[in-house]
């Protein structure tokens, strides 16, 4: 997802330079300029949600710990940062499919099921922002 800071900047720029100047009616034009001003304040008020990043790290760490206990599953290189861990998981998924015959169907199903459970956790975290609002 695009980080909130640069997105705020582009929204403000678009309101000031594209949208507002194109509005002939003074009242909605003023509203567009005011929206830009308020967004500028708002951008200083908000921070990226750290709980989502922490949730992703937890889900990935738990997955790697479980997979390490499963015989025959190639774990790839250990990493550190969140993006490194996601790259490691993406590679692990590719390896899992490639080694399906070697490790046997039962081991594949067990590891694959655990991977999908973690993927669902990651997806649910993203959907906290991108999912449809309940209201």
């Amino acid at each position, binding site marked *: 997802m695009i980080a909130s800071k640069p997105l705020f900047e582009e929204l403000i720029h678009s309101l000031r330079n594209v949208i507002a100047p194109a509005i002939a009616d003074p009242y909605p034009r003023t509203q567009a300029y005011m929206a830009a001003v308020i967004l500028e304040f708002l951008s200083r008020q908000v921070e990226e949600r750290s709980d989502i990043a922490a949730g992703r790290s937890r889900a990935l760490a738990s997955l790697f710990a479980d997979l390490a206990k499963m015989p025959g599953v190639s774990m790839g290189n250990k990493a550190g940062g969140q993006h490194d861990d996601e790259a490691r998981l*993406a590679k692990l998924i590719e390896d899992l499919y490639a080694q399906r015959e070697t490790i046997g169907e039962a081991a594949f199903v067990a590891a694959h099921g655990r991977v999908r459970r973690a993927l669902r956790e990651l997806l649910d975290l993203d959907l906290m922002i991108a999912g449809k609002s309940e209201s």
Partner: protein
Amino acid sequence: MAQQPTIQDRIADYLKTRLPGAHDLVLSDWVQTAVGWSHEIFVFYANWSEDGRPVRRGFCLRKDPGSGLLRELSSLKEQFLVIKALEPTAAPTPKVYWLEEDPSLIGGPFLVMEKVEGEATNPWSRAGKKFYAEAAKRGKLPRSFVEALASLHNLDWRAAGLDFIGVPGPGKDFALREIAKWESLIHASSKKPEPILSEVIMWLKANAPTVQRLAFVHGAYRTGNLMIKDDAIAAIIDWELQVIGDPMYDVAYVLSDLNREGSPLLSCVVERDLFIDYYQQLTGLAIDFDACRYYQVLYLMRTAAFWLSASGLFAEGRSKDLRLARTTYSVPVVLDMAARALGF
């Protein structure tokens, strides 16, 4: 200080070079449509006098902005050659006039085709849904929708000279080629790894279906990409995703929930039973529902690739279009649909 020529001035100057018998050429009814995500699209009339008689002709110009959704995968030249090849066939398509690859003429490569009379009403809007629902009740448009698709799938694409767009090998090659194409767009668009997409891609590779018969496939056959006049398909437009491949790829797109958002009608216009029966009757093909379910997952992967490309163009500063920024929030939603289709 001399004023810079506008794009209208430049296009009018261009048309004068292409229509040497035209005198006093002026453009009118100029519209830049906002629908194109890959190209800038201009629709207008040119008015001139020729041999003392007034002439008025509608044109549609598609210009490559250099930062389109499909990036390097989009080729105006291929579009031009495909539409040209389709001209003498039964498939309803616009007449295409000129391709210009020189970016200096109007600021980017472009092609010019006829303005087909009719409407490509957007099916997502409330008014669009109403338009298609009412047309569906009258009965002519749903049948025309199926007939136009069948005209593509029944086409002798080799005889039409369409094999230049690439012919997959037998068996699973078609699906694997499509996966590779959209994977390349993902790699070009996103620096951040996306494990959910990795799982979807690996599943697609492991479960690719065998193609029974190769056909000419539009790749995005739905309302919104079809010009409609008098309740009939006047032209199939948006020639960016066509392939030689499995006709079930198009059928899956029509059957997909992706293209009907709350409407009980496929593509907001045709009853499911009518589509299935009439399509099978016109093409002699039996719809393979397992293959269609597979291709619907492939479409979700392709859609994720589109949104990653769109939001990537915005994040890279190559586009200021806020519609592209909005797609950053669409990626998890489409991945959720794919995950649910795969059972997790």
